[in-house]
């Protein structure tokens, strides 16, 4: 198609590396036959590519161009690093993958479905922490820097740890008996942050990681039967399985906080975990709204594609709300104000706002 001098000249680099679409392929040799300056440029670029190939004179045919064994002895594949040797060393997928997985990253423990979101969230924070050296003082949320945010997670996870019989890793706090749960939570976090700020961020991460590993090693993390028993954590009486989901929620939200502060895009949890978070939040929200005007809440992408009617069940539905699952979680986590969260809305706006306000005021974190 391209016959003109300028057009072919533009194509010479693509031609030299073999990246011309079939439609353009014929034009270059035709033009080169009659144009000395293009032929010289083509030769120069081809020589460059031949040297990049490493094997002078080899045709460019993708996989076969692994030659260059002339550096050593014999043809390709039998030189100083032939296929056979790679095989002996446990080469191929298994060797590469086994070696990669031996790297400095803790394996994600095999736990029951209710604890998988937490195991994954812990892995997610481990991954992010690798980006933090030199940036631990970055302000994150409230008046916490990244270091304090991890210290907060030590304190937050500790409530479930204690309920499951795991010894506290931080010195005890002097919190008077009868202090309301929310206030006790704040005091404990303040103590944890003060304590951890006297240590290195690496030590704080080690404490957090050890406690998380202990939680994931409990019978309650591995056995749905054991996790069915109720426990009161932070004034919330729920099955232990649900407390694990709440731990996942908090670990992810704070990982996301740290990511935002660093300008790193933290992906939302895998879809099936996100759905577990959504379902639990909807259930708790439903309790808080038991006598409110009923609203159909639909969260996009949940497995059954259905919604939940929240509120009094005697009346007809006053409004319909549609929310993205990540946005819904951010609302429940206090990362969206009720009037800021993106949503679809039909029907009575006041009833819908009531639901959003209730979701935001769950204030789990």
């Amino acid at each position, binding site marked *: 198609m391209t016959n003109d001098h300028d057009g072919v000249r*533009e*194509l*010479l*680099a*693509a031609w*030299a*590396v*073999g*990246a*011309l*679409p079939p439609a353009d392929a014929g034009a270059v040799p035709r033009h080169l036959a009659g144009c000395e300056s293009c032929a010289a440029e083509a030769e*120069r*670029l081809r*020589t*460059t*590519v031949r*040297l*990049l190939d*490493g094997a002078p004179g080899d045709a460019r045919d*993708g*996989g076969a161009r*692994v030659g*260059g064994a*002339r*550096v050593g*002895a014999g043809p390709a594949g039998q*030189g*100083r*690093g032939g*296929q056979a040797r*790679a095989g002996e*060393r446990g*080469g191929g*997928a298994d*060797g*590469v*993958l086994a*070696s*990669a*997985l*031996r*790297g400095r*990253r803790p394996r*994600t423990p095999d736990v029951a479905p209710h604890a998988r979101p937490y*195991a*994954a969230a*812990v*892995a*997610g924070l481990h*991954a*992010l922490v*690798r*980006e933090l050296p030199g940036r631990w003082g970055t302000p994150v949320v409230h008046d916490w820097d990244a270091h304090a945010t991890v210290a907060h997670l030590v304190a937050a996870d500790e409530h479930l740890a204690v309920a499951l019989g795991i010894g506290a890793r931080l010195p005890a706090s002097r919190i008077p008996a009868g202090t309301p749960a929310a206030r006790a939570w704040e005091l404990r976090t303040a103590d944890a942050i003060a304590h951890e700020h006297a240590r290195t961020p690496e030590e704080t991460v080690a404490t957090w990681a050890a406690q998380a590993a202990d939680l994931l090693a409990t019978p309650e993390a591995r056995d749905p039967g054991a996790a069915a028993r109720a426990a009161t954590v932070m004034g919330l009486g729920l099955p232990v399985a649900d407390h694990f989901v709440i731990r996942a929620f908090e670990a992810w939200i704070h990982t996301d906080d740290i990511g935002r502060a660093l300008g*790193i*895009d*933290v*992906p*939302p*949890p*895998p879809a099936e975990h996100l759905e577990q978070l959504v379902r639990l939040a909807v259930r708790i929200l439903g309790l808080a709204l038991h006598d409110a005007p009923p609203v159909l809440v639909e969260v996009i992408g949940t497995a059954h594609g259905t919604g939940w009617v929240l509120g009094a069940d005697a009346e007809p539905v006053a409004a319909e709300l549609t929310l993205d699952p990540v946005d819904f979680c951010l609302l429940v986590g206090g990362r969206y104000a009720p009037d800021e969260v993106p949503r679809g809305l039909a029907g009575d706006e006041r009833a819908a706002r009531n639901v959003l306000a209730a979701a935001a005021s769950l204030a789990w974190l």
Partner: protein
Amino acid sequence: MEPTLEQPPIDVELHRRLVYGDESALRDAYAAYGALVRRVAVRVTQSQTAAEDVAQEVFAQLWTRPYGFDARRGSLRTWLSMLAHRRAVDWVRSEARHRRDARADDSALHAIPDAGPGPHETVVDRERSLLLHTALAELPRSQREVVHLAYFAGRTYRQAAVELGIPEGTAKTRLRSALRKLAESLADPPDPATARGA
């Protein structure tokens, strides 16, 4: 036949699974890009053994530091290809350094002429090849991406343009600028000592 183009959402999902510690995501990444990583490494190092080491390093890095890859900045294919290339260049440099040290010891002790790598021409080509790959590793990212897709990953310049989300003309121009710069580095080596890893 043109290869199937990359779907960016696949990268996003793969990255999400890697971040959340899903080991099967690493297997999937290897199944999709392992051959490319090895191809890049073999072309630079001329050694299957070295390519194996490079592939191990590349996938270990993807696993232990998944946030090293940012899906907003490009595809996983180009990121892994560029990482493999840089690691392979480092491997050849350190190899050259070791060989030179060994030779220095050798000649000091025995003064035996080098019986090693064969004809002079091949050695010169080998050094020029390393010089080129070093120059390639130092090209601006935008040019390197096109070279990796068009040269190592076997994409046409049009497919590369689609994968990078740039106009075809831009892909052509970047490829041309890149290759010309490489050709110039041959004619006028910037600092041979750097290229040989001194």
